């Protein structure tokens, strides 16, 4: 276990370093002026000052090592667009919002996905199963910004269930995270159904029934664990998807999360901010993948972790 975590930690450092290096050189070689590019009309003196402030006058390799040193101290430096704000402050503002959106979205996805998936599997080929599957496929087949559009038209403008726009109250998170969860809930529902049907056909389920256990016990105690294994391994890609999805939903619902900052930063060439957000996302994704592998080992005793 410890060995596994240490090994993973090493790979995480390597991964983050690779991502850092690639992103850094990509950003600065292709648009070397960064956000200053759009401010050509600045007087030469001020521009020179700014360039000095952001170390733009130094060679790229020098800056690479300097920035890397700063990152190791968890200090990503100042933003180029929002002058006076450090990247760290931007992260501190955006991250909690995005994390709560993401966590809420993932929880909704798991809750809805497991529930409908299990019901589908138990009532296989029934009306309820078929309709769940139709809805699930719909969730997979519609871009989530379109879904969000429909949700806004229906729930905000027509039914008035949710407040329009605005940010700060917990209720403001519900609709966005539901929209965020939809495609993943759909996918998890499908995976759960498949897994459940596979497991329910196993001999040990028949044994459980032969032991005189009630169907609820059999499903929840004996079948569930095996059935959710595919879902667990899907959680890694799902996290990546949720990160992407939050970009869209933060924009549609005007949520000032990390995603919004990232899009702004990318469009305006605010390289320090983009780089920092990419690093945060890499960290989140890697941690989630490790967590998935870890829980895989916990759920299935036959899996050996040291690999």
């Amino acid at each position, binding site marked *: 276990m410890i060995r596994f975590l240490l090994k993973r930690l090493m790979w995480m450092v390597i991964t983050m370093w690779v991502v850092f290096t690639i992103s850094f050189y990509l950003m600065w070689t292709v648009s070397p002026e960064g956000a200053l590019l759009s401010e050509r009309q600045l007087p030469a003196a001020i521009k020179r000052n700014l360039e000095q402030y952001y170390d733009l006058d130094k060679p790229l390799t020098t800056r690479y090592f300097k920035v890397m040193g700063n990152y190791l101290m968890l200090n990503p430096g100042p933003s180029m667009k929002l002058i006076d704000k450090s990247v760290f402050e931007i992260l501190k503002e955006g991250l909690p919002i995005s994390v709560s959106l993401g966590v809420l979205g993932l929880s909704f996805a798991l809750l809805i996905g497991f529930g409908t998936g299990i019901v589908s599997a138990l009532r296989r080929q029934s009306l309820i199963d078929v309709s769940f599957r139709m809805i699930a496929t719909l969730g997979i087949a519609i871009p989530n910004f379109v879904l969000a559009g429909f949700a806004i038209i229906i729930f905000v403008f027509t039914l008035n269930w949710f407040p329009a726009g605005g940010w700060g109250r917990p209720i403001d998170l519900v609709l966005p995270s539901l929209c965020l969860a939809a495609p993943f809930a759909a996918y998890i529902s499908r995976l759960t159904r498949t897994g459940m049907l596979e497991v329910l056909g196993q001999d040990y389920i028949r044994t459980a029934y*032969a032991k*005189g*256990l009630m169907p609820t*016990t059999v499903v929840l105690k*004996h079948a569930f664990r095996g059935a959710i294994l595919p879902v667990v391994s899907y959680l890694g890609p799902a996290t990546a998807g949720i990160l992407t999805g939050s970009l869209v939903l933060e924009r549609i619902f005007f949520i000032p999360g990390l995603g919004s900052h990232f899009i702004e930063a990318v469009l305006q060439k605010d390289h320090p901010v983009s780089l920092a957000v990419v690093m945060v996302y890499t960290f989140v994704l890697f941690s989630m993948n490790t967590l998935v592998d870890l829980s895989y080992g916990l759920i299935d*005793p*036959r899996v050996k972790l040291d690999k």
Partner: protein
Amino acid sequence: MAEETTTNHSSTNSSSGKVLLEVRDLAVEFRTDDGIYKAVRGVNFDLRAGETLGIVGESGSGKSVTNLAMLGLIPQPPGKITSGSAMYAGKDLLKMSDKELSKIRGNRIAMIFQDPMTTLNPFLTIDEQLTEVTRKHLGLSYNEALDRAIEMLEKVGIPGAKRRVFNYPHEFSGGMRQRVVIAMALSCDPEILIADEPTTALDVTIQAQILELMQKLQEEHNTAIVMITHDLGVIANMANDVLVMYAGRKVEQAKVHDLFADPRHPYTLGLLNSIPRIDEEVGAKLSPVSGQPPEMSQPIPGCSFYPRCPYHIEQCLQIDPPLIQVDSGTQHACLRDVTALDPPVSQSAHI
């Protein structure tokens, strides 16, 4: 429907044990894409305390389905019990609700399945799987149930049971797992144990140990055992009564000695000819029962064994032979008296 013989008669021939289970006219079918598959077509038998009933037949003859159906373990749909009754303690198992049935399953009637590698849940430790039976049926606390589990594991011969009870199934070998399965099945002292090919997936040496274990436990608890197998050796060892099934029907039932000494159905004869015998001369040919069992999703005209039967006559195509009882108590479903006929040559001739 064809089986109208009374079973009262046979009871006079068998030893004393009280009748625990009476199965009458049981029929099961499966609805598949290719039509209705009639897996069991009217089977009768009695099971007595302390006795072993062997059920023999090739794969697909309906021997497992018969027993699964009794305990409501057939997935419905596609399966469907179309007729029959299985009386246990004055009640019909086939008409019980899930809740009533689950009080009997694992408690009064327990089952052992063929493949010990897949019958234990790989995600749960042995103690979890063993204690949940006794906690449910005997109302034990976890600690009591754990003591009971360890006791049972020791009884079935698992060394270091105190420690190993906390292991996962994959940490046991095949033979050990089957012992665990037996311990699990017997932990509520069931009256009836249904063993569905319990030794088929095991090594020969382990097979003998497991059978011995089952016999020992049967003697201790006076359990009735239904032994489903295609291995006539196992039958000769274990069974008191033998029931031969073919294409979903009972074609012969006899005392174990009578079955081997005086087989009455051509199929039984074929089965006996297909096993090697130690008293035969070296080089003697084994003759398997040639041909394939009938397609059971199609209606079968006359006797289902007709196409493979070396003794067949024209009449066999007209009626499905009813069960006939002979003096020894043996019942058989054949129009002809095979004991009075010469052994046929046709069967092995065209191989």
